[in-house]
């Protein structure tokens, strides 16, 4: 006699409300896609300016069947993610060195404070001049562009670790190595991950630009080839493909963050959407 008899209608109502909001949310996306198709078909734009969504989907499908899509996506992902990996590891190592070592800090601090806000993409022609137009130069420019957020976040994260944590670890006999691995790095992890979350989309942006400028395979290269041949279906297909890749990468990173920080109180904050 303890269970309230009206327990489940309430639950059902809550589920219905949630479903309603999910429906309302996907509504605008669907409306956008429909508007695209209708606008393109209405003749307000030439097919060159705005090819129909159905044509673009067809093109993506034929790319997928022929295997071009897999090759291009794979190459772009390979370049962006290799660059990101170097940024993630190199950025944390340099940031750690800067936070723990005076000489490293003396050397890198002005470079970071000047290099971070620079539009480093301007160095792309210089990198091409030095390293040619292949993967090495693409990955190099990605690293040059995307490593700074990781370095800066690592430095800030480590500097922000509570002194009490370090003192108590020292007091309990932790040596430098243990201190770094068990106390400082985990405590700085939220900041470091934020830096990486800034860095990852940058890697993709720069990978696409580098591919566009240097041509060849890859999603950016395929787009620039399509645009040279005035093939606007190909250009729009490229945007959709790159958008999907970007969306998946950013979401994957957010999920990774939630997993890695499961112990942290932010995981229970409803605000970190």
């Amino acid at each position: 006699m303890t269970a309230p008899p009206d327990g489940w209608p309430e639950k059902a109502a809550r589920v219905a409300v949630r479903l309603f909001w999910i429906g309302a949310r996907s509504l605008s996306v669907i409306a956008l896609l429909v508007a695209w198709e209708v606008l393109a078909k209405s003749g307000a734009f030439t097919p060159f300016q705005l090819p129909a969504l159905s044509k673009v989907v067809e093109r993506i499908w034929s790319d997928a069947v022929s295997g071009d899509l897999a090759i291009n996506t794979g190459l772009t992902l390979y370049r962006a993610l290799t660059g990101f990996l170097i940024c993630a590891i190199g950025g944390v190592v340099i940031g750690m060195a800067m936070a723990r070592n005076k000489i490293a800090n003396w050397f890198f601090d002005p470079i970071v404070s000047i290099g971070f806000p620079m539009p480093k993409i301007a160095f792309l022609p210089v990198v091409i001049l030095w390293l040619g137009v292949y993967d090495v130069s693409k990955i190099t420019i990605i690293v040059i562009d995307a490593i700074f957020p990781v370095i800066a976040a690592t430095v800030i994260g480590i500097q922000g670790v509570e002194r009490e944590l370090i003192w108590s670890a020292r007091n309990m006999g932790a040596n430098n190595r243990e201190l770094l691995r068990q106390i400082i790095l985990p405590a700085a992890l939220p900041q470091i991950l934020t830096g990486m979350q800034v860095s990852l989309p940058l890697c993709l942006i720069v990978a696409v630009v580098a591919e566009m400028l240097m041509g060849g395979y890859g999603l950016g290269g395929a787009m620039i080839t399509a645009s040279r041949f005035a093939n606007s279906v190909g250009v729009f297909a490229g945007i959709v493909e790159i958008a999907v890749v970007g969306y998946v990468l950013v979401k994957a990173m957010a999920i990774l963050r939630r997993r890695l920080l499961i112990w942290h109180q932010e995981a229970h904050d409803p605000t970190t959407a």
Partner: protein
Amino acid sequence: MKALIRYSPLLLIAIAWELSSRLGLVSQLALPPLSDVVAAWIEMIKDGELITNGGASIYRALAGLGLAIAIGGVLGIAMAWSKPINVLVAPIVEIFYPLPKSALIPVTVIWLGFGDGSKILLIFLGCMLPVTIGAFNGARSSEQVLVWSARSMGASRLRMLWDVVVPSAMPELLNGIRTALALSFILLVSSELIVAQKGFGYLIGSLGANGTYDAMYAVVLTVAFLGFAADRLYLLITKRTLAWREQNP
């Protein structure tokens, strides 16, 4: 003196650059001596090449960024202010936010051609969402206590928007604009490198194609410096704007 010690690593790099090139450690083609680069820079200022192209670039960046701030800021605050707008717009923002904006370069060219219009549109599209999200997060987190007290003192909904929500959205909004500022330079230079008839990026590309590398380096360094200077100037302005806050983050 303190600044000299702080920035001495940059001086060391500059000296290493000059020496390695002059002594033939690296090819002068790949790395022209810094002094040659400076000479080429002065030359280009004199004949006006750098200033005309720079002016075109700066105009594009400012126009695109201005539009992005105006429309993005209003959109973000509106999203925080009204649930229907939020439900309508948020999914679209969420889909387009992770899109690597450089993918839009060919489309803006298809729509608006090789001139100013396509660059301004690209910068506007690329920079709008960081501003929107900054404004949204800022406006959403305006303190409930402030909102309640304003309401209990009889402020109208609009008045509250202006007096409470907008000021408390300011810090995050300004942060979003800073991200947008950096992005605008990236998009400007990359779109000009890929397709343009004037501007910094165009100049870099054409000088590189001609093999006049000392001039190319001069332009690259100019763009890099401008990006840095714009960020510093922006920080200075931000500090002033937020001086009313108890504590600057």
